[in-house]
């Protein structure tokens, strides 16, 4: 037994991230080189990827953002000049400019990481959130720090962690969690640490660095800054190349599968294939350059909340922008300490548990892994994954092929998320209630339902019937391994589901989402009923549920 064996598991796993400070400059240089190469490649077939097009788009997005923020004209000078001159500039000057801009973005994004600070950040307190709160002296809001230790008990970490710890020794882990809340950033960092897994480098929204609650914590977790308001191609290329570069160098990675928080609370169905492509790309490059330990392992993580801190803002944003593309939310519940405190307090008091489920890891092609980190096929055969890259007898980069591998990996991740989604009574009954309202008031459109259903009463016996039918379908789905039931929902007994949901509706949200009043359920916040019920969407349950109602209407 060596001395290091005496240390707790978490202190033994020194992450490759600790090298980051030494390698920062080299990484930035490499990213710039790769961006230039990638642009040269893409622009051969796509006009929007010429140096000129990329720079002028970047300049316009930057300027628009600066005006939005009311920055003075002198701050805008660089971009204004670029916007004016880029179409007239010589090719080599434009390329030089592209490198300069890429370098700026790469340098801005990449963070500092200190192993000591990381241990401090994750080790001092049971949950990362607590660190953030303590630094802001908000202990009093929580009725003293003592109860915080209880939070760790409320957060369940599930999955084969031993397997993951072994894999961390054999390849580079990339975690891909579902994303419901800004809380995810803190929880996942804490959970990875708590599980004895190496610290990760990950792209987190710039607002988390601006938020005093989280800034210190984020920096020390190995997060790099991603400014999602910079909606232009060059920035995305820089981030993808940075992500790939870090994974290739063996930095464990993490990114949220869909890039942004789920607005509807439904499990992500569309993933960000750009960043996922950097995972496949890293493996392909590792193999083609003959790296000794090329393996990259993908770890899907499902973060299951009962309540979502930002539920109100997220669903309102969805209702405002439905079908109109994405929006960036700059201020929400996460930036209101009192709201965060109430959320945590309720999680402590009311048994509103949170679970982080580390699902079975795979290689970048979606194959399962044995305990030695070898890929295993459906018949249990050990696979040589380099074969996936063969062109004419040896491994080669083929962007079309690799794009498709990425697409398939994305599909497998969605399936894994769905299978590991854990639903509680709040989700189940909210789904039954919303579906009942939708069918009963078939003539109301999507928006009308949210306006008119406020204050509606539904008899509990009717709702119980709906819940009972849904429970039967859920039993079948859960038995087939297509969805998971929280311990509180496992029995699928309609009475206790209803009681659990009533507790859930009245917890955290003020006013309550819905209430049980004298044999009725009275709906106060229909959009939140929809939001929480959406956790069951994507399984095709709604049509089956409608089939059994025997009558009332579709119109």
């Amino acid at each position, binding site marked *: 037994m060596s001395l290091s064996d005496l240390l707790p598991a978490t202190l033994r796993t020194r992450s490759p991230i600790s090298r980051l400070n030494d390698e920062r400059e080299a990484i930035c240089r490499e990213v710039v080189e790769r961006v230039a190469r990638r642009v040269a490649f893409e622009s051969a077939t796509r006009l929007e990827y010429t140096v000129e097009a990329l720079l002028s788009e970047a300049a316009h997005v930057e300027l628009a953002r600066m005006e939005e923020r009311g920055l003075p004209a002198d701050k805008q000078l660089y971009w204004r000049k670029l916007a004016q001159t880029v179409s007239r500039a010589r090719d080599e000057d434009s390329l030089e400019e592209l490198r300069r801009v890429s370098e700026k973005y790469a340098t801005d994004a990449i963070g500092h990481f200190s192993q000591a600070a990381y241990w401090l950040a994750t080790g001092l307190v049971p949950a990362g959130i607590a660190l953030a709160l303590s630094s802001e002296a908000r202990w009093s809001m929580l009725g003293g720090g003592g109860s915080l230790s209880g939070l760790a008990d409320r957060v369940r970490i599930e999955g084969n962690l031993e397997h993951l710890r072994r894999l961390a020794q054999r390849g580079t882990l990339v975690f891909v969690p579902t994303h419901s809340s800004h809380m995810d950033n803190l929880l996942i960092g804490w959970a990875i640490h708590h599980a004895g897994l190496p610290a990760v480098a990950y792209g987190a929204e710039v607002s988390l660095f601006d938020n005093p609650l989280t800034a210190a914590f984020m920096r020390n977790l190995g997060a790099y800054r991603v400014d999602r308001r910079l909606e232009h191609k060059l920035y995305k290329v820089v981030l993808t190349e940075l992500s790939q570069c870090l994974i290739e160098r063996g930095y464990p990675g993490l990114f949220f599968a869909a890039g942004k928080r789920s607005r509807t609370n439904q499990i992500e169905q569309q993933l960000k294939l750009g960043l996922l492509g950097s995972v496949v790309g890293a493996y392909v490059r590792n193999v083609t350059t003959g790296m000794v330990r090329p393996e990259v392992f993908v770890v899907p993580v499902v973060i299951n909340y009962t309540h979502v801190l930002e539920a109100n803002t997220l669903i309102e944003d969805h209702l405002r922008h439905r079908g109109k593309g994405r929006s960036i939310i700059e201020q929400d519940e996460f930036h209101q300490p009192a709201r965060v405190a109430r959320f945590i307090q309720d999680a402590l008091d009311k048994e509103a548990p949170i679970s982080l489920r580390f699902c079975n890891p795979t290689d970048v092609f979606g194959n399962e892994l044995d305990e030695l980190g070898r890929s295993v*096929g459906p018949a249990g055969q050990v696979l040589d994954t380099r*074969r996936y*890259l063969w062109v004419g*007898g040896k491994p080669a980069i*083929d962007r079309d092929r690799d794009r498709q591998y990425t697409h398939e990996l994305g599909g497998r991740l969605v399936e894994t998320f769905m299978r590991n989604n854990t639903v509680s009574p709040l989700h189940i009954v909210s789904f039954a209630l919303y579906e009942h309202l939708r069918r009963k008031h078939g003539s109301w459109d999507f928006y009308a339902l949210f306006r008119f259903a406020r204050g509606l009463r539904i008899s509990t016996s009717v709702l119980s019937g709906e819940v009972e039918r849904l429970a039967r379908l859920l039993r079948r789905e859960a038995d087939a391994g297509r969805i998971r039931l929280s311990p509180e929902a496992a029995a699928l007994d309609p009475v206790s589901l209803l009681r659990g949901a009533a507790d859930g509706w009245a917890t955290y949200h003020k006013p309550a989402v819905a209430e049980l009043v004298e044999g009725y359920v009275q709906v106060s916040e229909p959009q939140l009923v929809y939001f929480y019920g959406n956790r069951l969407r994507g399984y095709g349950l709604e049509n089956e549920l409608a089939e059994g109602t025997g009558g009332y209407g579709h119109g």
Partner: protein
Amino acid sequence: MAESQRTAIGIIGAGRVGIGLAHVVASHGHRVLLFTSLEDRAAEIRATRHATQIVPELASLHAGVEVTTDPAALPAACTLLFVTTSRDYFPSVFERIAPELDGAHQVVHAIHTLDGTGLRRVSQRLISLSAIRQVGVMAGPAHVADMLAGRPNAVVVGSAYPRVVAAVRAVFASRSIVVESTSDIEGVEYAAALSQVTTLLAGMCDGLGLGEAAHSILVTRGFAEAMRVGQAFGASPATFSGLAGLGRTIDSVRRIEPNYALGQIVGRTGSRSASESFSDALGPEVAAAVVKAAALRGIPVPMTQAVHDALSGATPVRDAVQRLLEGDR
């Protein structure tokens, strides 16, 4: 074995399509390995160089075709493999070969059916049964008799992997065989499977003697419905107007292929037992799967429902088809 040595073309299944395909590919100058799990058939082909019962018009199988019953032989010698077995044999045959396949193999199938309430495509099953990812599908109004006779033929290859498409084109395309391609593998698989239901319906209509107009109406509506179903499952509607959808529907009706023939008998006699003697007609099983899948997703499928009702005995065939043609009263 290095991929550079895997230069032969593998064909799984020594039925009519498999043998015909093997002969054509070999006559394009490729070494072909033809796998069958039937020892008798392998022995017969080896001894006589033809299969009189199955491909009577083939006088002599090309010398470049080697027949094997060893499931490891094809994966070791081939990069590109075609799965041409019938739907019934597919699982047992492919399961024997699957453990030998790796990520470098490219597998293209021609089995046009859909499975379960998720309407799972055959290429998805290929991937879930083996380590392969580079899959493709072949469909269209191509026929062994025409190919062997050098008459014009066209197939569409659907694959999201451009190298798979290129590989198929390289071994298969010729003056008389046009190989079209699309990256919409879902589209080709759904179009090829669903068009069989439309063909069945056309057969029923003609068997019932409802007339030319009724035939045209039902084919048109059936086609639109197939497109709608495919689209709901991720296929591009444009693919339906290509060879796998429209091309195949027109062809199947003209040629009285098994789905059409079955529909015609059911229409004419009202007897449902005919299904058993048309095991090549996958329309009935596709219709059954679509009816269930569509109900779960709330997609209206009156055409498919009518076909399914008529075949399952839920509704007499005349009523089922007639109902589709009635206007608002």
